[in-house]
């Protein structure tokens, strides 16, 4: 296998500096819906100006470049040990080129490693072997502001009168949006996992955020449920940056998982408007960033 360090570096640069078209289009729609002269509208105008500038200058959209989360799907016979080494080298190089902020802080000593390399979960790298010849790598950069407002509920939830059904799921998701207010850089995207254990549920909620905003849920019932949650979350009126306004949430993505009979977790990962995710596909010597 070839050394893909420079290809990974380009993936990181694109993810940090060049927002995906589906997210940008959704932000344009949101801006157009806010009242003329409102703080919400001018916030989204600044957001869109920033997106264009970051792309043009090749500088980070947001200074919080988050935890780099890589999902690597590789053909049979690839060395995941070598891929890991190359990804880690690319992350350190991207940090010294100021595409990433040094973000890895040892939680015990308080020391920032300075190069974004921490323990085996920093950067986070998931590997999965797939059929075929292509290497597919997805990268997501998720900042701390929105990560902090994520929430996990265990149903039934007495406070919210939320039972173990989709009506209960609806209630806790709306509660999570209310609690987040503008703190997660609204308008955000909701990644929701229903089921799983505490760990796999949060993991599933992040995975669901890889689905494009304009890509419907393959299950028509869940798709309608996603639409309903987005519409109801927007009725809360929190608005861009929490200034009050029409758009609080750009979209909702739900993933159903299996659960234990005794457990019913609902995990909500809140993604800020700066929803940075990109893909790289390697086929032989051909490398694409679709």
């Amino acid at each position, binding site marked *: 296998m070839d050394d893909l360090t420079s290809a990974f570096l380009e993936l990181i640069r694109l993810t940090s500096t060049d927002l995906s078209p589906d997210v940008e289009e959704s932000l344009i729609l949101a801006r157009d819906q806010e009242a003329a002269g409102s703080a919400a509208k001018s916030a989204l105008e600044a957001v869109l100006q920033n997106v264009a500038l970051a792309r043009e200058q090749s500088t980070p959209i947001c200074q919080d470049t988050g935890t780099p989360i890589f999902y690597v799907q590789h053909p049979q016979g690839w060395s995941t040990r070598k891929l890991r080494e190359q990804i880690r080298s690319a992350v350190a190089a991207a940090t010294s080129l100021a595409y990433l902020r040094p973000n890895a802080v040892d939680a015990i000593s308080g020391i920032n490693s300075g190069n974004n390399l921490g323990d085996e979960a920093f950067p986070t790298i998931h590997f999965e072997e797939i059929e075929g010849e292509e290497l597919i790598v997805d990268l997501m950069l998720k900042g701390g502001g929105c990560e902090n407002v994520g929430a996990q509920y265990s149903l039934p939830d007495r406070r919210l009168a939320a039972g173990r059904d989709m009506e209960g799921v609806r209630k806790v998701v709306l509660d999570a949006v209310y609690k987040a207010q503008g*703190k997660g*850089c609204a308008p955000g995207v909701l990644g929701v996992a229903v089921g799983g254990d505490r760990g796999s549920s949060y993991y599933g909620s992040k995975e669901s955020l890889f689905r494009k905003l304009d890509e419907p849920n393959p299950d028509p019932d869940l798709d309608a449920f996603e639409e309903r949650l987005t519409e109801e979350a927007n009725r809360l009126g929190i608005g861009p940056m929490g200034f*009050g306004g029409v758009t609080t949430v750009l979209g909702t993505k739900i993933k159903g998982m299996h659960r234990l009979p005794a457990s019913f977790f609902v995990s909500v990962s809140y993604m800020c408007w700066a929803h940075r995710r990109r893909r790289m596909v390697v086929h032989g010597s051909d490398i694409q960033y679709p």
Partner: protein
Amino acid sequence: MYNLSVPISDEQIRELKVGDSVSLSGVIITGRDTVHKWMIETFIKETRQPVGDDLEVYEAIKPLLDGGAIYHCGPVVAGLDTGDYRFVAAGPTTSTREEPYQGDVMRHFNLKAVIGKGGMGPQTLAACHEVPGVYLHAIGGAASLIAQSVQRVIDVHKLDFGVPEAMWVIEVKDLPVVVTMDSHNSSIHAEVETQSMVELERLLAS
């Protein structure tokens, strides 16, 4: 649109109302979680002894914070290897984490403006009334855009806290912000929270 320069007077602060757009210029300091904890423990509650360059840094920042502004920001900085620092991306971080400290820090240093995102709570609002001061909301995530307002990096203190947590002394020109908490006990954040709670209760009941 108000043009505001640091240092800011009490009269200027009292003139500002929630919803006002402000263009801020002058020398300000970044400070977030580690800095606020360090200020409170070392100089305000004095639960730990100053060590290393603590006193020296304190003397250096005191005149800058008097009538000045602190920016909740952990920037991306170029030139770390050469010391020829330049802000590449510099949006605000979520301010609410400083809620336990901010009011005391404002009173101690006569700090007039706190810049961040997401708003702060009742303790900071009370300090805004008392000092008086304001909370200025920058646009979260607009990091490349805001970095353009940073004219130069004048100094850095406590770089051993890490790049995001250090105190960067910067000169800004026309930093665009909105007053979301003023010195007259008004907070857009408290208002939006109350209104959204009414709507949430309606949705939960339906």
